[in-house]
Every structure is written in C-alpha cells, then in structure tokens.
C-alpha cells in the first residue's frame, strides 16, 4: 500500500567547494596560532625523569632551556660520553651559563625580565654533581625561577 514511487534516475548533486578555502584558512590560522618553532636541535640524549606533580609550562616565550645529558652518538667522538651541558646549539661549560642567562634575559621585554623561567631538561641518569653546579650558577646569575622538566605519569616506578 505504501506509495514509494521511484522517480527515475537520481543524480547526485555536485558538492559546492566554494567554502573550501574558508575551511582551509581556518585550519591554517589555527595551526599558525599554536605553532612554536623548534629553535634548537637537541644534541644530547634527554630521557626526562618521571613525576606525578608536573605542571604545564604556560608561557613558553618566557622560558630558556638548558639541556644536560649524554651527547648523541655522532658527537661522542668529539665530546665524550659524559653528560654535557647544551645551551642553544652548542655544548658549553658551567662558566658559560651566566653569560647565557644574561643573553636570554636581554631578549625579553623589560616587564618580562623578572618572570623568566629556566627549564632544565636533564637526563634522568645524569648525576646530581653537574645539576648542582648548574643550579649554583643559575643562582649566581639570579635566574631563580626554574622548572625541572619531567614526563607526567600517574605512578612513579621507583628504580635505584
């Protein structure tokens, strides 16, 4: 009894692509907004320690990064396999940290200078000796706000 009448051939209407550029532009702007360019190539192995209490670094523009870890394979011939400090794109010594901090601070605007954060990305197998020395020179450079970078986990598996 139903009156389903087939009305001949159905042609699929072409989808209008007029709004495609708009969609693409929106996506584009989104990615442009969230992009932070990677400025430095990490030349050391950094396996971050695990922690449960880590907080997200909110203002990346205020952060300066210090990497400490074993040099990567191709640098080991030159720099050895003991943990080294990497600032920007080069291996540096403890004494260079103060200059580095001064230089990084110079790049910030006057208002942000006090809010500078130094993010320490340190390999979990590094020894505290080098870390303590870095911390001491940060204190001397009066860069007192620091963040120990970690990977956030729900539970720490403790290994000695």
């Amino acid at each position, binding site marked *: 009894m139903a009156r389903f009448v087939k009305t001949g051939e159905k042609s699929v209407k072409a989808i209008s692509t007029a709004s495609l*550029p708009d969609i693409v532009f929106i996506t584009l702007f989104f*990615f442009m907004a969230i992009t932070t360019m990677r400025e430095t190539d990490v030349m050391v192995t950094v396996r971050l320690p695990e922690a449960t209490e880590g907080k997200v670094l909110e203002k990346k523009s205020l952060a300066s990064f210090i990497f400490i870890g074993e040099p990567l394979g191709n640098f080991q011939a030159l720099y050895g396999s003991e943990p080294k400090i990497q600032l920007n794109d080069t291996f540096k010594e403890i004494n260079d940290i103060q200059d580095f901090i001064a230089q990084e601070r110079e790049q910030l605007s006057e208002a942000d200078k006090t809010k500078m954060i130094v993010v320490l990305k340190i390999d979990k197998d590094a020894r505290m000796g080098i870390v303590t020395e870095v911390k001491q020179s940060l204190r001397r450079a009066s860069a007192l706000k620091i963040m120990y970078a970690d990977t*956030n986990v729900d539970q*720490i598996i403790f290994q000695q």
Partner: protein
Amino acid sequence: MARKRREVPEINASSMADIAFLLLIFFLAVTTLDTDTGLMRQLPAIPDPNVPQDVNKINDRNILEVKVNKDNLLLVEGELTEFSQLREIAFRFIVNAANQPNMPEKEIVNIPYFGDVPVTKAVISLQNDIGTKYGVYIAVQNELIAARSKLREDLAMQQFGVPYERLDEDRKGAVDDFYKVPISEAEPKRIGEK
C-alpha cells in the same frame, strides 16, 4: 576633472585554496604539539656575604631531613627509608595530628578566609649527594611536593568545596599560606664523590 572610474579586473581566486593548502601543510609539518611539563621551583638567592646569617633559626623539630646518597638510598630523619613510604611520612609530618613534641610546632596565624588558625611551621630539607642520580632526586622531590599538594587539595575541598586548581588567586594564596611547608634544597656539600 571627473575621472572615469576604472573597472578593477576581478582577481581569479581559484588558486587561493592551493596556496592556503600549501601554507597549511607547512605549518602542520613544523608544529610540535608537545607541551612542557615539570616541577616548578624557586631557587634561594645567593646570600649576601656582608649580611650576617641568622643560623639555626629553625627549630630542629620543624625540619624533616631527607637525604639521598650516592647509591640512591633514602635517609629520612636519619633512618633508612623505603621510597614508597616517603609520601606518607611527609604527610604525617606536616599534619602532626596529635601535636607530638618531636613533630613540627604550630602557630596561630590569621589567614584571610580562614581566620585565626594553627599553621604548621614545618620545613622539608632535601639534601643530595653529588653522585645521586637526577631521576631519583626528582622522584623524591616529587613525593614531597605530592604530600604538600594533597594537603592543599584537601583543604581547598573542605573550605571552599572547589578543587585547588580552580580557586582564584586570593584563595589559592590563602591555602598556600595555610600549608606553606617550604621544600628547601640545602647548600651543596661535597661528600662521598664518585
């Protein structure tokens, strides 16, 4: 001198999508979505040598001494302790529910939103050896921070009925004042070099 209005030829916009796509793909490729997380700490300023230090100002009972040696063993108040117990020990130390004489003393302080409340004077002192593994050091620090955050979290829930993270700055400050518990990193000592 009325000029004839010139017709502006229409720009062909059909390649717009291609250009946008190209840009999009570029930004897709260079984007790193990873966010940095970590433990925020404030280092103490270098003490001024001209200003006399007030040594031993903190009463011994107020200090929880945590030491990690070069073999990554944990010493809490001079006793060898398992890592898994650390959080609980720190928690009990800060709370000092029974007001024991060997645990931190409390001082009545006026805090906004709370009024006059007994506030613990507990301090946690973390010492490490030069040979301690960084991973262990962070794990220990994490436990200590976790104990303190748990207390703040509980307090926020109890007082305001809102998780700590969602409090405004003033209330957060009040909760922080209630459980200040500074975690101090002692001046480095050179012992047992490896």
